């Protein structure tokens, strides 16, 4: 049985296919390109051209994500985003108690899971200063790749602004002061960490799982390792939501 999961993110659409409990196919498409090139519109409904995404012969399909409510994908069962991510983490780790931190392009979720069920959560989707987009912008200012920037964590230069836009000018000011590139990078990473921290404050479990684009940031992981006994970046950190959709279909969805 083939199970299809789609996570409609704000920046990218993630697709995963599961067969016999294994993920057999993954694809990531930019959100704009997904709607422009892979969808047709039928009486206000969005029909995904499944052939184009090479997933025509599925048995069950589940969708989640930012676009879940305003884009009603035909043939897909929509599920809540938090749930999709938790199922993704349950599938990938088999743990029953953990904190899941998902730092996406435009939102951050911190979810506390106990006995395999969400019991608490913090969401930040109002401001860009604590999510992946912030890192991208800052890397652009520094004219460095995201991966390179994420390597530096020592002696972070202080960036005090709580706002993503003001942080940019603050960073430019620091560049002008002639501060070392490594410290500038570390400063950006540390400022993200500091903004995420209050969301995690209440969740003092020992295991932290990370997903989403910013979980590739090595410095962020380094900082979080001081707060948690164990920090694990999910292997499929980008596809966690889509995998969660497949897992949901596998465990809970009746056949169409």
């Amino acid at each position, binding site marked *: 049985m083939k199970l299809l999961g789609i996570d409609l993110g704000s920046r990218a659409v993630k697709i995963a296919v599961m067969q016999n409990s294994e993920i057999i196919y993954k694809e990531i498409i930019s959100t704009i390109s997904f709607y422009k090139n892979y969808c047709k519109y039928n009486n206000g409904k969005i029909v995904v051209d499944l052939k184009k995404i090479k997933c025509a012969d599925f048995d069950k399909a589940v969708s989640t994500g930012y676009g879940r409510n305003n884009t009603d994908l035909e043939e897909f069962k929509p599920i809540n985003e938090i*749930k999709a991510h938790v199922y993704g983490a349950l599938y990938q780790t088999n743990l029953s108690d953990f904190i899941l931190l998902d730092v996406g392009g435009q939102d951050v979720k911190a979810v506390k899971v106990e006995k395999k*069920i969400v019991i608490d959560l913090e969401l930040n989707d109002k401001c860009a200063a604590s999510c992946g987009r912030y890192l991208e912008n800052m890397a652009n200012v520094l004219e460095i790749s995201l991966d390179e920037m994420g390597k530096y964590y020592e002696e972070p230069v202080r960036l005090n602004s709580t706002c993503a836009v003001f942080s940019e000018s603050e960073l430019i000011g620091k560049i002008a002061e002639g501060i070392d590139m490594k410290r500038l990078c570390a400063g950006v990473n540390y400022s993200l960490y500091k903004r995420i921290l209050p969301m995690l404050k209440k969740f003092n479990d020992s295991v932290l799982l990370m997903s989403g684009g910013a979980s590739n940031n090595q410095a962020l992981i380094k900082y979080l390792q001081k707060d948690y006994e164990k920090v694990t970046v999910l292997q499929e950190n980008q596809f966690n939501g889509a995998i969660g959709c497949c897992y949901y279909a596998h465990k809970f969805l009746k056949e169409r």
Partner: protein
Amino acid sequence: MRRIGVTTTIPSEVLLSANCEIVDLNNEFITNENYSALIDMAEKDGFPKSSCAWIKGIYGACIDNHIKEVVGVMEGDCSNTKALVEVFQQRGIKIYPFSYPTDRKLNMVKKEIDKLIKLFQVDIDTVEKYRLRLNGIRALANNIDKLTYIDNKASGFENHLYQISCSDFNKDHKKYKTELENKIKEIKHREPFNQKLRLAYIGVPPMTGDLYDYVESLDARIVYNEVQREFAFPRADSANNIYEQYLDYTYPYDVWFRLKVIKEQIKNRSIDAVIHYTQAFCHKAIEHIIISKEIDIPVLNIEGDKSNVLDARTKLRLEAFLDMLSDMKGVRG
């Protein structure tokens, strides 16, 4: 008639024997249309921001209702009551202290009740007569509980309301008895509810009464209200006298004694998950550490503060929790 305020359920039998009207200050607070003005009143009189809304509300309700005499439960209920009572004293309110002794021994409970009997100048025979009469009313409230978890006809809120009101029998036990009888008749005629998930509610009664309707809108129902049920003394008929009855009352004693009954009820009522309500700034929130570990089904801790309706974040948490539970239940069922 003398009106006596109470800070929680106390041996009502004694006060009624002395021909007093019992006024549960918690109920006066939470049913007041202007409940938040009562909190403000307490803060204006110096109650700190960091004390819970119930304590402030009780204070406000007492002053607002011009209550001149209060039975204050000094031990077993709330550690803040002691200071509250001292403020009452300063304002010229007469205090009758009562305690649920920490070590829960029959002779200690007897001593406390006898003290109360003496303070109100009544005799044990009258008290016992009242006990039997009140237990008749409590049995009716118990009936509503059964209509909730066996017949599935009473809503979670009705279950909460009719049991919690047994702390003062709505200030008039005769009228309350008739009200219960009518309610039971009405409920019996209903079609049963059919929500998929069965929940337990444990901890102090909620500030946010809309919790019940909200979970019902999410295909779940609260079929057990821990403390409210205790207020209605569900095991009253197995007690030989008032002392035994108040000894076998879980809420004011230690958490282990409470947990024993909670666990029994989770099993008896086929409960899928537990909502543990705690009040902001309440020392009882610490008990969640124990409770969440001791109970082997999922436990969600929600916290109320000054508002009497659920906030958006709590709603989201409840929704996510119930959503996943209902997936699991689908598998099992």
